[in-house]
């Protein structure tokens, strides 16, 4: 995984709360056996009409959304199904961070393992971001802050190990494989 330390982008604002992973990537696209190419189906049922034509009023289809890598969405983003296809679709589309007031546990875990930053901010900063689509914001993992265009910075929580892995491009599987001796000792102790 590529190390990630900072990120700067204009925002795209999705005016929806409790966005479930079925919306992020509908189940009919889960018959794939690879990780790639899911960006084409991101938010498929909101992005396209029944005839397959883009819905002009959906935020991702608007010209100003092009090139934005930070998505701002309502409370409790990523609830529902554990499908990792959701962060795969978001990153394949080009997003590197999602900003909300709360994330569902499994989605947050899956995102961190794919270099997608789940940025949980306080309701005041979140409210401002929801009201100012296209705001130019930056995210810094060293200080775990998100900086608004005004220069005001807000802190966000980030689990220390996940932060270390993101900033150094460390692969968690490699870390676990390195604990083999301890795993063997545990198995011997419990006779599993």
């Amino acid at each position, binding site marked *: 995984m590529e190390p990630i330390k900072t990120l700067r982008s204009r925002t795209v604002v999705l005016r929806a709360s409790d966005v479930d992973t079925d919306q992020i990537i509908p189940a009919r696209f889960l*018959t794939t056996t690879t990780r790639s190419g899911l960006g084409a189906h991101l938010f498929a049922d909101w992005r396209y009409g029944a005839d397959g034509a883009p819905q002009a009023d959906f935020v991702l289809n608007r010209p100003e959304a092009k090139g934005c890598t930070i998505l701002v969405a309502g409370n*409790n983003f990523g*609830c*529902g199904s*554990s499908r*990792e296809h959701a962060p795969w679709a978001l990153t394949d589309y080009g997003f590197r961070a999602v900003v909300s007031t709360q994330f569902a546990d499994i989605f947050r*875990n899956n995102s961190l393992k794919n270099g997608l930053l789940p940025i949980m901010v306080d309701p005041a900063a979140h409210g401002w971001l929801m009201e100012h689509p296209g705001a130019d914001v930056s995210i810094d993992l060293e200080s775990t802050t998100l900086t608004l265009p005004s220069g005001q910075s807000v802190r966000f929580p980030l689990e220390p190990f996940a932060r270390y892995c993101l900033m150094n491009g460390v692969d968690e*599987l490699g870390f676990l494989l390195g604990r083999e001796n301890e795993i063997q000792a545990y198995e011997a102790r419990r006779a599993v």
Partner: protein
Amino acid sequence: MPPPQTLFEKVWRRHEVAAETPDTPAVLYIDLHLIHEVTSPQAFAVLRERGLPVRRPDLTFATMDHSTPTRTEQVFGGAPIAIEAAARQVRELEVNCAGFGVELLGLRHDRRGIVHIIGPELGLTQPGKTVVCGDSHTSTHGALGALAFGIGTTEVGHVLATQCLLQRKPRTLAINVSGKLAAGVTAKDLILAIIGRIGVAGGTGHVIEYRGETIAALDMDERMTVCNMSIEAGARAGMIAPDETTYAYLAHRPRAPQGEAWEKALAQWRQLPTDPGARFDKEVDIDASGLEPMVTYGTNPGMVMPISGTIPQRPDDAVFAKSLAYMGFEPGSPLAERPVNVVFVGSCTNGRLSDLRDAASLLRGRKVAPGVQMLVVPGSQQVKRDAEAEGLDKVFLEAGAQWRESGCSMCLGMNGDLVPKGQYAVSTSNRNFEGRQGVGARTLLASPLTAAASAVRGRVTDPRELM
């Protein structure tokens, strides 16, 4: 004397290969890893890329359920699987399991079924175990006193390669339920009411323990229905302390310990329940005695109401308005008597034998209303055989419902079992998200009793009117 511990804490501690530190999560050992065709292919690909074996194939168990057909001829021959990509996924799981030495209950196996139905049914799921699967409804297995939770595909790869996961310790939430459920009010209604109370993010970051006299009085099928939907409240897992009901359910199941090993296991299981005086991070009290059958009116499981009620009004909430617009419902209007197009009985929430018995009890000697399509999909091939031995299949078929092979089916519509656009489905499944059962489908979650009553009337119906 050690300080009193919760059920969750006991199971967690017993599985710490390494405890968490401020800098690193715990390394948690996994006793049972269940895999299926949809969320495992990319994990096996990682093993291949890195030249790694499955570390403990003996603790890994595979089946196929999500994208598999439910039409008999597509399962047992005579017609191909209708969706080519689904057929490819099924074949890929067969190749992966054969290549890595993982036991697979394949498409035509007589014990195949929805992964969360067959784990307990076979006795693989046991009290005190850690159980994971690349599926959020893994919380179901917590009904037996296991710590069971859904994981993503990267984590599936971690468990395949190391039998371990890196995890931060979740917080604990006790849901204390008292009072007797009224006739016609089921475990499904109880869990829907709980989600309505605490909200779809009310359990985020927590493991729920369902406690109290009402929970203790539930049978195992009912307990699984409750724990199954813990994830719909955002919880990491749901657990119920093992007791005599649990042990009676597990005794003599094919993969449960037998003989001396059973006695030894039983002695350990009896140590698991939460100690008196143990503290939870949060507690919620629920009185079940006044509950009615529950039904959802919106596009998440927290948007739920008593069947005799009216849809709430939230005039200043645009997201709420959008949800009701999708459903085609007006704030302040009742749900009862609204027309229904499709009825689905099945899923890991309500696809067990007692659920089918409930549905059949209201369909016996009655007909599915004209114009209503009713699909009954048993949760496993064993449930199917057991139901047929009782003649339930005949009840469903004579009423005009369809009787299928087991699988996830119309719960998520991956296999082509879909609710048509704009139509209303009363469904015993777990999610009423937009498009969950098909593009534009409108889902009303309810119990098997409510689903069957609604099928008979062709309208959303309080099952007590037919009892």
